């Protein structure tokens, strides 16, 4: 798809989502429409959450039902071989423990992104060099996202656990403004902006970017943007937000309150994000654990990888074949291994 088509489609989608949230917020704020508040403050969050959990489990089980016919780890190091050849244990794992270590580094440190290279031309010759920008920004993006989600647990726990307080204190140690700036929020917004610009700036990445690449980025940018605006510019009554969220998680929903348009946009975008999650590329969160190229040991010379869809094949051996056609073969003058019984 052409870049304009991709961008326009995904912008229409994010525009529609944000507008629905804004209309809901306006309905609550200006028209005191409690039906809209219940729908967007209670019903849709419940539905979105159930969709997320059920969809995630569904996707993982469908993957787990697909057989892996071959041992296909992709490795980039010396496999276990003769005793005097040094194995690269992390690059080419042989045992379970080595696989776990390799997976842990992949999941926690994005090791394969670290290996990113970029080709440039120097004096007419192609030159491959390391390129770690994507790795740095992707790490920043994912970890700040995690920190933000954990920090948001202050809306869902009472009393608030000490670790959350510590995390928030660390995140806000710059003590800029009141309420103070939380570093992770701004880093995430910045990193997501970079990830978007990356898709737009490089012709080769632009070429392979589709609406389903842009849409999640727009969604996350909208969530981060409305969140930062709510904290620093158009402040909302966060005590009411917490009362509402605690009602949801204790299954005693309280009548949603007029918290402001921004909050309803923020919340609705989050609902769309989690409901969309299982059906989108965001499922790499579960998928990374199920990647056969990463989670299999490179032991194919020592252990036979049984293709699970092998079934008992009905074979017709040559002996049986000759048994069946011996007379006709003799008649036709073909050589046989065993003479016909009658002629003996």
């Amino acid at each position: 798809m052409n870049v304009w088509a991709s961008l326009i489609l995904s912008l229409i989608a994010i525009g529609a989502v944000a507008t629905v949230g804004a209309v809901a917020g306006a309905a609550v704020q200006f028209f005191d429409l409690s039906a809209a508040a219940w729908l967007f403050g209670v019903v849709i969050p419940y539905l979105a959450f159930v969709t997320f959990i059920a969809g995630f489990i569904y996707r993982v089980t469908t993957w787990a039902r697909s057989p892996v016919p071959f041992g296909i780890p992709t490795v980039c190091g010396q496999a276990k071989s003769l005793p005097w050849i040094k194995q690269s244990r992390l690059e080419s794992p042989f045992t379970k423990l080595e696989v776990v270590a390799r997976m842990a580094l992949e999941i926690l440190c994005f090791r394969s992104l670290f290996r990113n290279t970029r080709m440039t031309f120097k004096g007419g010759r192609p030159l491959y060099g390391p390129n770690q920008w994507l790795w740095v920004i992707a790490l920043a993006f994912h970890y700040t996202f995690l920190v933000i989600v954990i920090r948001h647990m202050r809306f869902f726990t009472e009393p608030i656990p000490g670790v959350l307080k510590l995390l928030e204190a660390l995140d806000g140690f710059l003590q800029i403004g009141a309420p103070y700036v939380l570093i992770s929020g701004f880093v995430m917004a910045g990193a997501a902006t970079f990830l978007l610009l990356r898709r737009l700036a490089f012709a080769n990445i632009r070429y392979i970017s589709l609406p389903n690449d842009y849409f999640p980025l727009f969604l996350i940018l909208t969530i981060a943007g409305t969140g930062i605006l709510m904290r620093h510019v158009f402040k909302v009554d966060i005590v009411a937000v917490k009362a509402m969220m605690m009602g949801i998680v204790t299954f005693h929903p309280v009548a949603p309150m007029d918290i402001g348009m921004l909050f309803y946009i923020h919340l609705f975008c989050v609902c769309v994000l989690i409901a969309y999650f299982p059906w989108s590329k965001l499922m790499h969160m579960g998928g990374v654990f199920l990647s056969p190229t990463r989670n299999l040991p490179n032991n194919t010379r020592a252990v036979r990888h049984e293709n699970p869809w092998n079934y008992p094949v009905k074979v017709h051996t040559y002996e049986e074949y000759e048994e069946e056609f011996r007379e006709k073969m003799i008649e036709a003058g073909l050589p046989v291994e065993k003479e016909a019984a009658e002629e003996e």
Partner: protein
Amino acid sequence: MYDKGKVITGLAIFFLVFTFPFWSNIGKTAPMPERSLDTPVLQEMAREAGLDLEQALKEGAINCVEDKDYIVSQHMHLLNLWRDSVVRSGNRMYAGAFGKRHEMSLSKSCMNCHSNKKDFCDRCHNYMNVNPYCWDCHLTPEQMGTASDAEVKQ
């Protein structure tokens, strides 16, 4: 399903982590905290208006420096503005929304009426894990000996 044991263990961990807000709150309730406005100064203001406190608040005979909704969500911003105005411009007077002038002072203005920090400020601040560093320097009513909280007095 292949690798049933591993997949189901993984999914169970996923389920437990993501439903944390639900299971960690089983059997709990966390209603919205109530801010107490029952302080001697506010009682006195109601008496002057010839009303009891609740009526006076309802009828708008007693007001904060700005509209209540604004104060609920923006008081921290207002305090920052006050700080900057006092510290940087030396301007200490604030024209309130209800035709009164107030001294821009946390201790002398805010805490004069709200002398019950524990039953007023802290209730929401604890609920939301808000720890204003104002009190690193400024004295609380308790420290000044002017607190009117029930617990503090005992």
